[in-house]
């Protein structure tokens, strides 16, 4: 029966066409993202190296473990360029073969953007994290002295999170940075979820199948259970598909998978990350959170499908609810109203706001990290919606009545 429910969801020409079209659009969007963000292009002056070539040549020298020797070697190469361009009189014409790219300016810019700045961030991160951990430790004693146990506990969590954080390796992070900030595919997933899910119950009604299924032995709770499972799997598969398309498209266009083993705080905007895992692990965690977010939305769309007579109404309501959730999410994205973040499943979808910051929610005096709370709320919402769908689904009176002991009339 589950197979048929999946077939009903997936085996539609229109859906497969939309999926194909959206995949092409997504890949095109990643390509556009690549061209509009990276400086590592193949453009070059005659006889000179392109930025891309120059970068990877230097990467052979400076990539990997950050050692004193490597840093000194880098500074030896970088500082003369810095001095040469400091008075702004260096030629910008790319015709000098002593420079990799043909001009001091270009070499300097390349090394500053792709080496000096990230290297500095990596090098200083350990020290800054140590400072934060030290401050947190001081705060623990301070708040304990003043009887503020909540702040004390909060600082204890911060201390454990930041203590021992350091970035030992230098890695190319550009692809990862833009990959982690890429949200376009979420819109496509939203649309596909709405398109696929709002029809689940509404179309049964439109096809007069609801009456037929409700009269069948397995047409009651069991069928609803299969429908819920099918919707869940549909959502997971769509989310997984675009997760893979995004990842491999970024990897393809940036032609790199470097840095996946680095800690997540190696990405500058994740300096205050509330998780201390590697980027690989974060990608998985982010996928799981995003999928949970879509599951909440998916179950909500399913509930609307259950409650409305035709497919148009739940479609309109689903679109409106999604837009509202996105707008509210954007409004509160940078605010300190943490509850507004953890209660809105949109933040699970674009979860870097949850994982990228160390924020807490006060749960009966216990500091809970915002991402933990958002995941718990997401699971609760998802289960509640599943329960509501199961509760509101049409059942056969005869079967329901049998459960009611001593029921004379029905």
């Amino acid at each position: 029966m589950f197979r048929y429910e999946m077939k009903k969801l997936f085996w539609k020409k229109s859906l497969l066409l939309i999926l194909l079209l959206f995949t092409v659009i997504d890949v095109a969007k990643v390509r556009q993202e690549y061209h509009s963000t990276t400086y590592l292009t193949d453009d070059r002056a005659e006889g000179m190296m392109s930025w891309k070539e120059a970068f990877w040549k230097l990467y052979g020298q400076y990539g990997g473990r950050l050692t004193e020797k490597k840093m000194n070697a880098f500074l030896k190469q970088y500082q003369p360029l810095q001095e040469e361009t400091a008075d702004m009189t260096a030629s910008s014409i790319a015709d000098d073969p002593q420079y990799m790219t043909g001009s001091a300016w270009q070499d300097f810019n390349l090394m500053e953007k792709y080496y000096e700045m990230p290297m500095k961030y990596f090098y200083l991160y350990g020290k800054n994290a140590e400072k934060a951990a030290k401050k947190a430790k001081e705060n623990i004693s301070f708040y304990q002295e003043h009887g503020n146990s909540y702040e004390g506990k909060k600082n204890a969590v911060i201390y454990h999170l930041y203590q021992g954080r350091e970035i030992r390796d230098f890695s190319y992070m550009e692809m990862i940075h833009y990959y982690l900030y890429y949200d376009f595919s979420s819109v496509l997933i939203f649309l596909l979820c709405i398109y696929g899910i709002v029809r689940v119950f509404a179309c049964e009604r439109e096809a007069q199948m609801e009456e037929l299924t409700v009269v069948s032995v397995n047409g009651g709770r069991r069928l609803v259970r299969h429908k819920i499972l099918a919707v869940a799997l549909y959502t997971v598969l769509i989310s997984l598909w675009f997760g893979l398309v995004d990842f491999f498209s970024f990897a393809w266009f940036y032609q790199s998978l470097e840095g996946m083993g680095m800690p997540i705080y190696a990405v500058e905007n994740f300096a205050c990350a509330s998780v201390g895992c590697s980027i690989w692990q974060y990608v998985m965690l982010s996928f799981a959170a995003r999928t949970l977010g879509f599951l909440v939305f998916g179950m909500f769309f399913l509930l609307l499908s259950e409650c409305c007579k035709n497919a148009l109404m739940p479609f309109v309501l689903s679109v409106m609810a999604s837009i509202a959730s996105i707008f509210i999410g954007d409004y509160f994205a940078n605010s300190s109203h943490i509850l507004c973040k953890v209660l809105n499943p949109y933040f699970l979808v674009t979860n870097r706001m949850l994982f990228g910051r160390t924020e807490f929610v006060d749960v009966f005096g216990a500091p809970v990290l915002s991402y933990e709370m958002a995941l718990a709320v997401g699971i609760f919402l998802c289960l509640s919606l599943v329960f509501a769908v199961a509760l509101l689904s049409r059942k056969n009176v005869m079967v329901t009545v049998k459960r009611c002991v001593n029921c004379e009339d029905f």
Partner: protein
Amino acid sequence: MELEFIGLTKSYKKKMALDHVSAVLDSGVYGLLGANGAGKTTLINIFVGILKGDSGKILVDGEDAAKLGKEFLSKIGYMPQYPVFYKDFTVLDFMLYMCALKGISKREGRERTMELLEIVNLADAVGKKIGALSGGMRQRVGIAQAMLGNPEILILDEPTAGLDPQERIRFRNLISRFSQDRIVLLATHIVSDVEFIANEVLLLKEGKLIRKNTPEALEHEIDGKVWSLRLPGNEELSDYEDCLISNVRRIEEGIDVRILSEEVLGRGAVRVKPGLEDVFLYYFGKGEVV
């Protein structure tokens, strides 16, 4: 198999959709006849468990259907009014899906599906999408799926609505074929659907069961009340406007009229044998609930 309705009642706000309907049904075809809104679908919906009745009981071989639960559902084959089904499914897929819903194993389901599709003359359409079937073919898929679990009770709600005469006859024959050793409850407002195949007819009017008898007995009840007469023109027809006119046929010499009347009509009127259509008109035309 014996089926018994005891005092089935259902009301929607102030309207009484079903008013203490009681009846006993044995094996055979039962035509549930009534005008639109008479309560046929309500009765069927309560019977199959789609709708909750206000009061009353259904007994299957003396056992309360409500207490039988899923066992009761396995005894029923149901074909709803105006089925559309899944347009993207092939006939075979749809039948196999219905097998899964009815708890029939895959292997057994496939065998039974092919057997039924052969009977309903759709063996060639196995791979066709339901969306590509004609109305009649779709209705035949409908009855085939209803017969999947070899049910003891077959419920058909307006199964011939929208079919052309040829398909209607074909469908009628199918119902007859499937009626052996089972109860077939056929709800319709098309008299000819039940005239030839029903063992008994249940007449529902405004939620009440007003008659339950064989077609012959029902016809016999209005013996002597059906008249045929020939009139020279339309003007004379107005003399009978208080009577129930069951048929008017224009011929060269004037018009042939078939009239239902309790009173003896004037000169030229001849008593004729009533048909089930006359019975329908007699009870649902201007007549009061008996």
